[in-house]
């Protein structure tokens, strides 16, 4: 393993110190916790938006803290959900009296830890609501599985729920719009190379030089199919078509797109993918309202990408377009 780290046990702690040092005017760390919050949190009478999860997906989630997005992000250990006490600290940091809204990615650990934290908060009289994001079409959504995973589509939930809260939306209104985004966002990813968790020291899976994994999760979870590497156009087609098949898209629909890098994929390759994705979407008669290309929901140094599509309506559009001061999502 070759990585720029000091002690593998302290990567999250060290990262957080560096993150705060980079954005001293915008962010603060709640002392003795792994919670990062807006410098001016809590905002009185605004619904607080809190997200979080395991670390290793940077800039998710602390990079999405800012005016118009998150109030606090709770950073767990590498690929490991934060614990209930930490999430509770995040809720308290974001609570300005109008309630706190939790954006949770659908993983067993995250759901359990955030649920326990919500119980602790409610016991202290803080009103809490939540949404569980499950945008990954690669895995089956059935009663025989835990359901679909939450991946890069989560960023659109942060953005739109955050904008609703910033505009003075109530806790219930924020929940309603977050559920609408979750119902209309779909993603799918792929990987060329695996990633290595620092404390584990070795890659979480193995791909041969000429292989790729279609449908990979953001922790290196297996996808749908392992096969020989194809061209960028073919990869774009495979991912985009799978996403398009999953919900009804009609000609003339407005969509927002994220072409997301998994961590080690050059922007050049993401733009090459985006060229083809654009062609596919335009061919389908869709109106691409906004495109985001870059590293938004990563998996350490995995190379690969994911495609996220959100079907917009007149309520979501202005909220997506609203200003955001978050370092990783400035609009």
């Amino acid at each position, binding site marked *: 393993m070759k990585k720029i780290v000091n002690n593998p046990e302290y990567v999250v702690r060290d990262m957080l110190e560096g993150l705060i040092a980079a954005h001293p005017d915008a962010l603060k760390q709640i002392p003795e916790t792994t919670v990062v919050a807006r410098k001016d949190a809590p905002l009185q009478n605004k619904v607080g938006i809190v997200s979080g999860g*395991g670390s290793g997906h940077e800039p998710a989630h602390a990079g999405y803290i800012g005016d118009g997005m998150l109030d606090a992000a709770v950073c*767990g250990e590498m690929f*490991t959900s934060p*614990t209930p*006490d930490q999430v509770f600290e995040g809720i308290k940091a974001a609570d300005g009296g109008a309630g706190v809204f939790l954006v949770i990615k659908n*993983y067993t650990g995250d759901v359990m830890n955030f649920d326990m934290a919500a119980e602790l908060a409610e016991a202290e009289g803080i009103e809490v609501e939540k949404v569980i994001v499950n945008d990954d079409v690669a895995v089956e959504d059935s009663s025989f599985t835990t359901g679909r995973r939450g991946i890069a589509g989560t960023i659109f939930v942060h953005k739109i729920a955050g904008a609703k809260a910033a505009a003075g939306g109530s806790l219930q209104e924020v929940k309603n719009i977050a559920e609408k985004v979750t119902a209309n966002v779909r993603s799918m990813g792929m990987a060329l190379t695996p990633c290595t968790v620092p404390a*584990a020291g070795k890659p979480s*899976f193995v791909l041969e030089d000429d292989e790729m994994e279609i449908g990979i999760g953001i922790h290196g979870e297996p996808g749908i199919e392992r096969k020989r590497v194809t061209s960028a156009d073919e990869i774009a087609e495979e991912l985009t078509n799978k996403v398009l098949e999953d919900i009804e898209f009609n000609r003339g629909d407005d969509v927002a797109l994220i072409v997301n890098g998994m961590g080690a994929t050059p922007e050049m390759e993401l733009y090459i993918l985006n060229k083809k994705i654009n062609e596919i979407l335009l061919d389908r008669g869709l109106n691409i309202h906004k495109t985001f290309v870059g590293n938004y929901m990563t998996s350490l140094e995995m190379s690969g990408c994911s495609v996220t599509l959100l079907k917009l309506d007149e309520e979501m559009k202005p909220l997506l377009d609203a200003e955001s001061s978050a370092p990783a999502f400035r609009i």
Partner: protein
Amino acid sequence: MELTAHDIITWMKKTNDKIQSKKEYLTSLDQAIGDGDHGINMARGFNEVVVKLDDSSYESVSDALKDTAMTLMSKVGGAAGPLYGTAFLKLSTSLKGKSADYTHFLNGLEESLAGLKQRGKSQEGEKTLIDVWAPVIEKMKESDDFDASLLKHTAEDSMEKTKDIKATKGRASYLGDRSIGHLDPGSVSSFYVFEALAETIEGGR
């Protein structure tokens, strides 16, 4: 026989020793069907438990178990933290103000199992740690005192059987049939917990 607070500390120390020495094995099991963090998380959590128990003194079994639970809940993370935290917290609550004789302890374990099912929204047969806890408790009901060998063997057999189960909960569920043939990492760590309990009982006789 009756367990003392000192026995609880011994139990947790023995569990920690096993988990530290099997940390990489647990991680490799989890990499096969999960997200590969089980060994690291359990090793971090149980190490903290031992530090906490060493730093404090306990009058009651319930208090020692409560600190164990709270430490696991706040230090493990992932799915294992809330699950093991809940299990030990229920055991602690059930034993509050009581001696940890066989009947009380077994009742406490039943509370733990109920807590695991509720927290994990899971039942037996879904390839989770419940597939070790449930049969161990069922077997213990047939006995009227601690039986180290029975405890260890039931836990071990139950752990082995998780190989044949298809996962329908947790991250392994995405693999469907491909999860068959792999041990469930949470069941393996639960086997260490019960094996350590068995050794604590043996040492206490």
